Every structure is written in structure tokens, then in C-alpha cells.
């Protein structure tokens, strides 16, 4: 078969065979308004050389500079062995397994991954894997709506302290399915979800409460109280976690006075995936055994074959296309399977102590950075509650201008969150992981001091667009 699937002549031949003049005639029963997707913002094609050059130029812009941006994607040290092993042909080319017993190596990796994630989160069952943390939250919401049979309202209480992009993705995926999201504000002083806003829903039909830990501001929520509130009101609790933070803070499986949350999700990127300009990443999703049948994806089990040898097999996949047909909810992807492989190898190399080390150093570095930055005139912490490895700071100048100026001097200084929260003008969140040295932290503080002293942004960076 030729590499080009069909030539103009082929197309004319096929159209002639079905008796239409052109491609549009094939789709004439579809309302033209539904067909007209405006792609004017997509540039016309470029040749390979031009694209390679463009990519190198963009990569070069990312390459130098110290990154203090978190906001959902975190720069951690990834041991060289992780991707050396992950990109071996045996893993790299393996299709995500659907045949229950095929591809033993891939199945074993998934089994190990699921075991580690359950250990880390304190949950019973884990899948592997979804597109990213945001779509995992959307899947968790859909699971809760299917699984919470006492609730008829399809109402989800969503703290504003959940990552704004996660809220946006969950709304995009779920809102047209009759699911309503009610926003729970945050306390101005602490940055935590406002318990009194939650209490307004006491006695109402609530399907699930989303509990971020740490939240988008980096603040540690009172996850126990939020989980208990959910369960006392007949709602599911959905935890949104950072897997690295779980090495230090209590896991969602332990939250509250009962059996922990019902469903826990998170972004898997910090476990061995490089930042890569935003992807590919993968979503973590795990739950209690009683909700396993609502879970998208597959669970790998370990067994013995007829000769007593260990074997791995897909044991539970009730939401996959071949089991649930039209009611399948699968969003599993081979590409994400490869990232799960990387995460499994990453976690194996680090071990529980190593992961704890990463978490502790990240938290300590961020604390040091915040201490340094808040000595600068006009820079102050926005929230008083304890944080993990990210912290919201208010700047005495326009945050975007300051971040642009920092970037022009090689420091990616954080993420401006003003656009998402009216009440938080000139607020940025900063993050320092274990990858930062004392000299790096000092460099940030000195440069920011200079930017603030000199005031005016001398060389405003031109936007990439």
C-alpha cells in the first residue's frame, strides 16, 4: 500500500462510485452550521525543515532559565535510567493491552504501577491511565454521578481553590450531561475552601464534593473536614492530589473519620515526566473497591498459569468499549500507558524514602524562597495557611510585567493567577522543587529585587505568538 492513502484521482474515482460530485455532497445531511469549524488560527502547512527549525528555536527559549513555575506541572529530577528504560523498544512500541493475557511485560508494569499508586494514595483500586489530571477529575465526577445512587441532583460542589483549568475541563466534559457545578469560595485569609459556603448546602442533595490537597494556591486544605462534610451529607468525596505531596501529607485514603475519600485523582507528571511544554502527561485515578465498576480503564491482576508460573491478566474492565459497548467511558490511551511505564520505573528507582526526600526538599526549598522573597519591600504572602511546595505571593507591581521582566533575565518566576481570581490582583504562585540550589533561590531573590527597584520593565519580552 502506498504511503499516501489516496490521490486526487482516487478520490474522484471513489466519489464517482457513490455518485456524488465532491466531498461536501457526502456530508450534505449534516447541518452546515455544525460542519463549519473555523480553523483560520491554524497556520498553513510548513515543510519539515521549517518545522524543525521552529521547534529548535522554541526549545531553546525553554532551555535556559531557572523555572519556578508550578501551577500543575512540576520540574523534578528524572534519573536518566527512567527514559533510557521506558524508551526501549519492548515498552515503546507496545500497544496498550486489551487482550486479557497478552503482553506480559506491559501488564506487569501496569500491575506494579497500580500497586504503587494504591500504596501512595491509600486507595483500593487504581487504573492506568487517563489523559491528564484535569480529565481524570472529569471522569471522577462522572463516576460519582453514576455511583452515588442516593443522589438525584447531579450536583458537584467544586471549591474555587481547585486548579482553574481542572474546573474548566470538568465543566466542559460534564456540564452538557446535566451535571451542575456549584462553586465554593475560599477564605480570604487562609486560602482554604470556605467551610461556611459549604454549610449552605447542608441538607441539600449533593452528589460529590471535590477536595484539593494541596489546592491550586499550594495551600494545605483541611481535607479531613471537607471529606467528613461530604460523607455526612450523603455525597461522595473526590480527592485531587499531587502524588509527590503524598509522600509527606496524609493520603486521601485516610482523610476524614471514615474510610477516606471515594475517588482520588491527580496529575501523574511529577512522577518522571519532563515538563515538555505541557505534555504529554497522564491522569491518576483510583477509588474504593465498591466503586470499581464505575471506574474507566482496566485493572491488572496477578495469578498463576497452568504450570504454576506467575502471570498477569486484565481482571476488571467494566467501562471499556468491548465490555460496556455504547456505555463505555474509556479514555485510556497508549501514549499515557508509556508515561505510566516511566512513572513506575521512576517510583521504583526512588522508593518510598526517595520520594519522601524529593517532597521534603521541595517543600523546604519553597519555604526558603518564600522567606527570601518576602523580605523584599511590598512582596507578601497572600494566605496564612501552611503550604506544600507552592505559595501565593502578592507583588507591589503588575505581576505580568514583573514575570516578563524576570523571564527576560532567565528566571521563570511563577504563574500569575490574577486572570482566574478577581480578588487576587498582582498575585503569582511560586514553586521551588528539589532541583533548585541555594544559589538558584538567591538568584531569583536578587533578580526580583532588581526588577522591583528599577521598577520599569526595560525590555518587555515580545510574546511568542
Amino acid at each position: 500500500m502506498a504511503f499516501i492513502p489516496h490521490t486526487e484521482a482516487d478520490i474522484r474515482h471513489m466519489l464517482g462510485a457513490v455518485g456524488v460530485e465532491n466531498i461536501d455532497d457526502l456530508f450534505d445531511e449534516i447541518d452546515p452550521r455544525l460542519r463549519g469549524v473555523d480553523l483560520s488560527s491554524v497556520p498553513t502547512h510548513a515543510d519539515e525543515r521549517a518545522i524543525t527549525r521552529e521547534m529548535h528555536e522554541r526549545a531553546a527559549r525553554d532551555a535556559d532559565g531557572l523555572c519556578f513555575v508550578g501551577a500543575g506541572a512540576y520540574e523534578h529530577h528524572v534519573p536518566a535510567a527512567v527514559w533510557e528504560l521506558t524508551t526501549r523498544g519492548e515498552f515503546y512500541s507496545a500497544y496498550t493491552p486489551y487482550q486479557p493475557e497478552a503482553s506480559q511485560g506491559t501488564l506487569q508494569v501496569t500491575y506494579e504501577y497500580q500497586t504503587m499508586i494504591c500504596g501512595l494514595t491509600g486507595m483500593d483500586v487504581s487504573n492506568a491511565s487517563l489523559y491528564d489530571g484535569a480529565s481524570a477529575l472529569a471522569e471522577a465526577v462522572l463516576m460519582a454521578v453514576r455511583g452515588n445512587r442516593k443522589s438525584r441532583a447531579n450536583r458537584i460542589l467544586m471549591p474555587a481553590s481547585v486548579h482553574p483549568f481542572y474546573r474548566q475541563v470538568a465543566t466542559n466534559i460534564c456540564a452538557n450531561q446535566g451535571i451542575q457545578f456549584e462553586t465554593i469560595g475560599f477564605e480570604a485569609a487562609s486560602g482554604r475552601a470556605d467551610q461556611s459556603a459549604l454549610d449552605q448546602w447542608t441538607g441539600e442533595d449533593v452528589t460529590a464534593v471535590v477536595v484539593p490537597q494541596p489546592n491550586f494556591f499550594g495551600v494545605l486544605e483541611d481535607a479531613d473536614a471537607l471529606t467528613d462534610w461530604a460523607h455526612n451529607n450523603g455525597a461522595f468525596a473526590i480527592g485531587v492530589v499531587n502524588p509527590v505531596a503524598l509522600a509527606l501529607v496524609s493520603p486521601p485514603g485516610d482523610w476524614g473519620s471514615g474510610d477516606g475519600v471515594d475517588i482520588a485523582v491527580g496529575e501523574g507528571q511529577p512522577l518522571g515526566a519532563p515538563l515538555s511544554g505541557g505534555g504529554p502527561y497522564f491522569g491518576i485515578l483510583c477509588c474504593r473497591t465498591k466503586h470499581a465498576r464505575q471506574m474507566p480503564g482496566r485493572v491488572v491482576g496477578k495469578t498463576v498459569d497452568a504450570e504454576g508460573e506467575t502471570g498477569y491478566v486484565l481482571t476488571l474492565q467494566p467501562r471499556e468499549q468491548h465490555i460496556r459497548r455504547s456505555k463505555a467511558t474509556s479514555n485510556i490511551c497508549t501514549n499515557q500507558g508509556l508515561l505510566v511505564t516511566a512513572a513506575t520505573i521512576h517510583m521504583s528507582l526512588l522508593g518510598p524514602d526517595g520520594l519522601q526526600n524529593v517532597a521534603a526538599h521541595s517543600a523546604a526549598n519553597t519555604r526558603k524562597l518564600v522567606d527570601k522573597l518576602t523580605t523584599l519591600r511590598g512582596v507578601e504572602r497572600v494566605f496564612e495557611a501552611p503550604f506544600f511546595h507552592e505559595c501565593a505571593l502578592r507583588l507591589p507591581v503588575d505581576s505580568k510585567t514583573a514575570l516578563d521582566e524576570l523571564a527576560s533575565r532567565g528566571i521563570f518566576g511563577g504563574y500569575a493567577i490574577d486572570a482566574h481570581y478577581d480578588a487576587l490582583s498582582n498575585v503569582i504562585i511560586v514553586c521551588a522543587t528539589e532541583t533548585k540550589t541555594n544559589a538558584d533561590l538567591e538568584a531569583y531573590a536578587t533578580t526580583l529585587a532588581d526588577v522591583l527597584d528599577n521598577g520599569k520593565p526595560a525590555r518587555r519580552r515580545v510574546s511568542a505568538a
Partner: protein
Amino acid sequence: MGERPDNYRYTQSHEWVAPAEDGTARIGITDHAQSSLGDLVFVELPEVGTSFNAGEQVAVVESVKAASDIYAPVAGEIASVNETLEDAPEQVNEDPFGEGWLFELKLESEEATESLLDAAAYKEVADADD
């Protein structure tokens, strides 16, 4: 193939209905249905007290190769469910017309079951599958 009790009623979608004298009816899936699905590994049953219209999805039976919806053959309120299936879904395979029943409906009207298929008519439906 398989037995088909003469005193039961049947649906096109392979549920059986056994009306009782107290205005309830017991419902399960036919021998033909269970043998087509293969080994059942899970049965999801409705909550007692919930009402359903005829044709609405009530329960789910899941085998190693498919999950299938079970529809209410007639309108009514769930009077009881066969809780033993939670731990022993294989009862549906072993005794589909007896111990493997799924749930009981309090019927909205006693005549409702009369429009369902009788054993002979259902035989034709099942045979057409084979």
C-alpha cells in the same frame, strides 16, 4: 434450546416474568440469555422502593465479555431484590429461572404482563438468535 417454563412470560430482550397472586412479579433473565453471556461475574441490582416504567433500565449483568442492561418488562416499583447475587452472581448461570432471579416488581396493573410473550413466542425469538 434450554427450558422455558410455560407459566412465565417473556420479553424480546430476554427477561422472564413470573407474576404472583399478590400483584407482584419476579423477574430474571432466560436460560438462553445466560448461556449467551457466559460466566456472570457481577450483578448490579436496583434499590428497593424505586419505580420504573416499562422498558427503563433497572439492573446490569456483567460477564467476562460484556455488560448488559436489564430492562423493566412492565412498569412497577421494586419490591425486593435477590441480594444473594451480590456474592454469588453465578447463580444466574446455574439456575436462571429459579435461584438466579434478579428482582421483584410491585406491578402497576395486573394485566400488564399479559401483553408479554408466552413461552412459544419467546422460543421463536431465542431460536432466531442461534
